[in-house]
């Protein structure tokens, strides 16, 4: 499996409360893992915080964009006066302060300029705020090199994460019933019944398990007209389609819906909605137009929720502990829903 690192006494003290949760072996695997984090906005800040605190070996922050005013409502790794400066570079100091034991570096190149072999140096690649074509390319490289791939984004009240862990093996603790009925029912010796061992006890046993993931391209290109898919439609989180519309916006415009162009962007989103849904083979009433008003910037608590789930999934993936969420998590802050669904086969 994964390389393991030695945990020092200082680390044992720092990570005490989490070692008590996921165990020393999981912490050793975390300690050996190298993570590439692309996209340092509000969601990126949350993910960076969570994985740096968890004690991975290294985190590389990759972003060629500059800090905007929007960052002040969700990105706590940059300062107000950083507006106009590179996001990765500006996030470096505060990220490093979170945990001096993790190697944190910043890379201000664009994702597109990076050759395929750049990504193969990492154990995990987490790509945030990228357009779908970029995500599909990175996913493919990761898949070919057995690197754990994650992506995600937050738009206003909405957020999602996706993972492709390939064929993923993990350890899982399950409660097993053990019959320890050593009871002596009748009792002539005056031993009170309450002193006897219980008839049924639970024992925690660790079992090996595995899960198979699909790639993002497949998860995005589902044809919902096919009966096998259309019958799942009713129970598919509608936020999936909101995400698809927003992804299409980014693909087409090569930018995110923005606060200062919100009026135009809202109407474009309405138009894209019909196109995207039509192309997917679903009727346009599956989502209403409210999202086109509530998808600007990033709402900090939404980043915290999606970044918390995403961060924990990265921790699960590298530590090979616990069943991962296969393959989407959607948070919809308007509905207040947080759903996991497997989309694509």
């Amino acid at each position: 499996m994964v390389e393991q690192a030695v945990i020092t006494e200082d680390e044992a003290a720092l990570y005490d409360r989490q070692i008590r949760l996921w165990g020393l072996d999981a912490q050793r695997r975390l300690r050996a893992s190298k993570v590439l984090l692309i996209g340092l906005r509000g969601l990126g800040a949350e993910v960076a915080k969570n994985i740096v605190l968890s004690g991975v070996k290294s985190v590389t922050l990759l972003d060629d964009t500059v800090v905007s005013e929007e960052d002040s409502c969700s990105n706590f790794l940059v300062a107000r006066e950083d507006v106009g400066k590179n996001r990765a570079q500006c996030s470096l100091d505060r990220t490093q302060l979170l945990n001096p034991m993790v190697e944190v570096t910043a890379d201000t190149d664009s994702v597109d300029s990076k050759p395929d072999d750049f990504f193969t140096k990492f154990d995990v690649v987490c790509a945030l705020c990228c357009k779908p074509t970029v995500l599909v390319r990175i996913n493919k490289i990761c898949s070919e090199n057995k690197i754990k791939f994650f992506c995600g984004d937050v738009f206003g009240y909405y957020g999602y994460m996706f993972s492709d862990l390939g064929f993923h093996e993990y350890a899982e603790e399950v409660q097993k019933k053990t019959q320890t009925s050593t009871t002596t029912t009748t009792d002539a010796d005056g031993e009170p019944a309450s002193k006897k061992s219980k008839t049924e006890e639970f024992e925690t046993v660790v079992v090996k398990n595995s899960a198979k993931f699909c790639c993002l391209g497949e998860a995005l290109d589902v044809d919902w007209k096919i009966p096998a898919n259309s019958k799942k439609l009713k129970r598919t989180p509608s936020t999936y389609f909101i995400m698809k519309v927003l992804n299409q916006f980014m693909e087409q415009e090569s930018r995110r819906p923005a606060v200062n162009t919100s009026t135009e962007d809202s109407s474009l989103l309405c138009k894209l909605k019909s196109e995207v849904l039509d192309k997917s083979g679903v009727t346009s009433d599956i989502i209403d137009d409210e999202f086109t008003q509530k998808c600007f910037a990033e709402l900090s608590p939404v980043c915290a929720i999606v970044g918390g789930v995403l961060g924990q999934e990265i921790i699960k993936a590298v530590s090979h502990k616990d069943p991962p969420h296969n393959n989407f998590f959607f948070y919809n802050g308007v509905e207040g829903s947080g759903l996991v669904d497997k989309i694509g086969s």
Partner: protein
Amino acid sequence: MAASMKSVLAENVREKVSSSKILVVGAGGIGCELLKNLVLTGFVDIETIDLDTIDVSNLNRQFLFRKEHVGKSKAQVAKESALRFNPDAKIIAYHDSVMSTDYGIEFFQKFDVVMNALDNRAARNHVNRMCLAADRPLIESGTAGYLGQVTVIKKGVTECYECIPKPRQKTFPGCTIRNTPSEPIHCVVWAKHLFNQLFGEEDPDQDVSPDTADPELTAEAGQTALESEAKENVTGGIERKSTKSWAQDIDYNPEKLFHKMFRDDIKYLLSMSALWKKRRPPIPLDWNDLPNTVDGVEVQDTIRDQTQWSIQQCADVFAKSLNNLKQDLAKQGDDGMLVWDKDDDAAMDFVASAANIRAHIFGIAVKTRFDIKSMAGNIIPAIATTNAIIAGLIVMEGLKILSGNLEQCKAVYLNRQPNPRKKLLVPCALDKPNPKCYVCAPKHEVNVIINTKKMTVKQLEEKVLKVGLGMVAPDVIIDGRGTILISSEEGETEENNDKLLSDFGIQNMTILQCDDFLQNYNLNVIVVHRDKLEDDQEYVIVGDVSELQAKIEAETNDKTTEENTNGASNEPGPSNIEIEEDDLMIIDNEEIEQITYSKKRKIDDDIEGTPTAKKMRLSSDNVKNDDDDAVIIE
């Protein structure tokens, strides 16, 4: 920032956010995340209160703190760090207990929303009552490992924090601890009691010597033991002059202490032969001849705390920690005492070594110092991601309250795995107030089963009223007679403290009018007298009279049935309002960010519109702890 916020939040919400005043109670795991979310979302008027200081084990998740902050006030450092995220915010930090009388109803009335980020039930109960009294919405939250929950409490609209009795913690009968341990935890509890007997406050409930009043012993056997005890004045009878003074007389000599605890007392236990008819008898140990091997495979490359000590190593650690603790005690001067703390190396070493030596004697599996620390310190694992998610959910509920959409608020549970309806976050409709709740219902009345001939006024105040019923500074009058039993004015009723309740004519069905001025809370306590309580409990709180009836009937039923029920008494049940502090086990104050799940959960109507009021139990019998609490997880 104003520009960007404009499109994230609707105009009216944005105005509410920037003009409302928020109280964040607790600046720990959830509190740090919450303060960050609040200032980023645009809240600029925040106060936060926490009495704790920063510890190195906080740093894996309480991300507003760094190594150089260890030992400093959490509230103060959290404020300074959060202000860097939004320099426009105004944050007032209090390094103080929220239960202090400095924070009365007027203090709570200043706020539009109160957000709890607490780690113990006593403070949660108190803030619940203060918010009810001040009529302010409260967002309550908690996490434990991968699990978490957020709920909204509003006077007269929703359940309050105390509407549903919380599951009580598991406790152990005194004779199990003193005579017949069968699990590692029994030995850990015993070792903590031993620590207190040797270095801490004298407490007769924490006796560590063999218990001759064990109900398993027939009267005769107990008598024989008593007689032999009388003969053994040299060692066996030392309790008469207190373990502590005896230990001081022998200058905490490790060999003598070891022989008393692990040889002579064990031999004495063996003399109670009735105990060992069906059990493996304990094997006394000799200081000069201890096993020096470790069972099982030696684990390589592990951390120090996770290596298993041999019994010889335990004895060495026992001796060394005794010596260190002796010196610590000496520094306290005459009449000084030590308070057990899992983070104090000598105190932890002492408990780990003593628990393992005792476990070995009784043929119980020995544990690593790491595991014993979890048990003795009642450590609830805590991680950054869960706290981040829960703090995010708190703000989402807060936004609904401020938008005037209280009816849209939900109790939200974070699961470890999605449920069959794909929900990782499970929103549940908020319950209506429990009309029989002794805290938020119009009539505050509760039944308390006690032995009035054994309980002192002081015990009533400290254990029943403060711990059991969550009061802070109660005044108590005996109903119909006007006698002031307890006054919150310092010294006014001190002479009553050591008297028994029966000395004041308190008997079955006497009503005690209890009043907590700070909480603006009145409660009528109906005394139910019993000569003997189940499981040696000191008191049992029964919220509802009909439950009491059921209980009385059950008691008078077949004896065996009763005992079987006792065996399952850690099951959360309506008649088991939790008893935080019990007489059997003391566990120190460990920080947790967690609240218990109530037994029932209503699931929202799902997307397909299937109306459901399914009851489900996701987890957990967890109980949070507080100073001197006994809590066992699962």
